[in-house]
């Protein structure tokens, strides 16, 4: 009993440390975003202060910021939809049909993640230039799909594997087509998996910086590159850059909070005996 108490205490402390390390930068960012440049740079910092929203209104008024936000949303959502669509099809067939080369396909996908994206950016840029598609969204969407699809397939395959195939077969004997069996039985049970995969893919393209910086200049700028431009020659407006970052982080945080209930899982309990 005593040792389990110690274990509990140690785990609690570790969790607290890990939690603090993760949350502190975010809180700091929000704090600074609510100050003025003057109060933000004060040392020691004020932990209690009257929040002002000047930085937010300045950021939103800045040319290109709203455009960047919209671009990021459009690109990330299209990437997400495409990745889930193709990812579900690929993952399903790898998980359920024991075809020759399934493992090779899976490992081939993993290999693509070994390449550092930096190594791909120059040839990709030249191709995009040749097509005359600089500063448009499709090349970014294609790149983000290529970067995120392997991850999506790997994750989704794991979730498909976790759903007993007999449930689908039972549905098919009950009179369902394979499509109906998957959409009415398997996918509803994969809620947690779909949620987790969606968050990963969305964040992957939402946060991407390198390709966005290289392939866009004005019209199709995404949020990370817009935020980076806040660092100008005249010095850094800390509250503004923090306000922009907070706005950039918001959709991801909101999505994660909404979905975490589903990610918690436990939905297949009771499916099979034992």
């Amino acid at each position: 009993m005593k040792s389990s108490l110690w274990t509990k205490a140690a785990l609690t402390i570790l969790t607290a440390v890990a939690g603090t390390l993760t949350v502190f930068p975010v809180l700091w960012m929000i704090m600074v975003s609510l100050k003025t440049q003057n109060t933000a740079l004060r040392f020691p910092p004020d932990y209690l202060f009257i929040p002002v929203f000047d930085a937010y209104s300045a950021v939103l008024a800045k040319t290109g910021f709203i455009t960047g936000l919209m671009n990021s949303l459009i690109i990330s959502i299209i990437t997400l939809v495409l990745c889930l669509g193709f990812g579900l099809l690929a993952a399903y067939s790898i998980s359920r049909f024991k075809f020759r080369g399934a493992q090779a396909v899976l490992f081939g996908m993993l290999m693509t993640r070994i390449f550092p994206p930096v190594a791909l950016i120059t040839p990709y840029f030249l191709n995009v230039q040749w097509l005359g598609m600089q500063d448009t969204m499709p090349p970014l969407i294609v790149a983000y799909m290529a970067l995120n699809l392997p991850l999506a397939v790997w994750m989704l395959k794991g979730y498909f594997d976790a759903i007993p195939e007999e449930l689908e077969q039972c549905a098919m004997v009950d009179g369902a087509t394979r499509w109906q069996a998957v959409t009415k039985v398997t996918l509803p049970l994969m809620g947690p998996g779909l949620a987790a995969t969606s968050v990963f893919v969305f964040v992957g393209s939402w946060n991407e910086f390198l390709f966005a910086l290289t392939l866009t200049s004005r019209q199709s700028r995404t949020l990370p590159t817009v935020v980076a431009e806040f660092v100008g020659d005249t010095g850094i407006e800390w509250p503004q850059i923090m306000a922009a970052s907070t706005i950039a982080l918001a959709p991801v945080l909101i999505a994660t909070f909404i979905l975490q209930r589903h990610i918690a899982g436990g939905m297949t309990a009771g499916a099979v005996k034992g």
Partner: protein
Amino acid sequence: MASVAIDGVKKSYGAANILHGIDIDIADGEFVTLVGPSGCGKSTLLRMIAGLEGISGGAIRIGDRVVNDLAPKDRDVAMVFQSYALYPHMTVYENMAFSMKLRNASAAETKEAVDRAARILGLEPLLQRQPKQLSGGQRQRVAMGRALVRNPKVFLFDEPLSNLDAKLRVQMRAEIKALHLRLGTTIVYVTHDQVEAMTMADRIVVMQDGRIEQVGRPLDLYDNPANRFVASFIGSPSMNFIEGKAGADGFETPTGVRLPLPLAGDNSGRSITYGIRPEHLRLDNVGIPARVVLVEPMGSETQVIARIGEQDISCLFRERVAIAPGDTIQLGLALDQVRLFDPESGKAIKH
């Protein structure tokens, strides 16, 4: 309702041959059980009838239609899986209504069918529960209920009772049998429990290693097993086998024990496996001498392990017996209940 004809059906996974040509003709309304040890291919054969496994050779007919290339949904069979396979995100009612919904049945029609099946299986109080809120036995009933909602041509059951405790198993066994009498639908029932097979089936198919060993009515298999495997598989406790040779006056083991041999003609020197069921041995005043090793009283009957020569054999007595380990007893047997097998091929020797 329909007959099922299985005609030279084979199954292989790559180079591994799992079923080597299975022939079974199942009549309309018949209750057939497939029995055999684990891994012999029972589930595989059942899944092939349902359309969940491809057929590597031969043909399966349901009614007068060859179903080899028909999707499971078009075969009009209902199946209860070994693992129950309840849809975890649906209530018991929705589980049972699922197949009706897929057939675009009206709400009233669906409700009626589900209520009828629920009444038969005593599921009415559970209809709004989720599968995870059910006990193993209740889940098993729901799985059964899901099949009963429909009026299929054939019911396929894959060891539906294997997860229940002994008492519930006996009860469900009776319920399934009563159900079959009432509905008269063709049933193919897989089990590795020979008691289930004996008590429920019109006919039993005994399988081993992807082959049929024997097909027949339960008591025919018990009385006239075609080979040693069937003889040992059907009946509990299992038949005793004694190896030896036919001598001048009867059967003789290498240790010199003599047993009466019901074989006409001169068979001197022929190797024979001598089979006798435990329940066919009785205590006698003059008979084969045996030393008692173990006595297991079970109330209704007494099982005794006794040593003849160097071999332990089991005996089952209906009466209470006053014997203890170490005693010497005399065992009698009726000649017409002795079964003889060829030690090489295992085939029964007619006599």
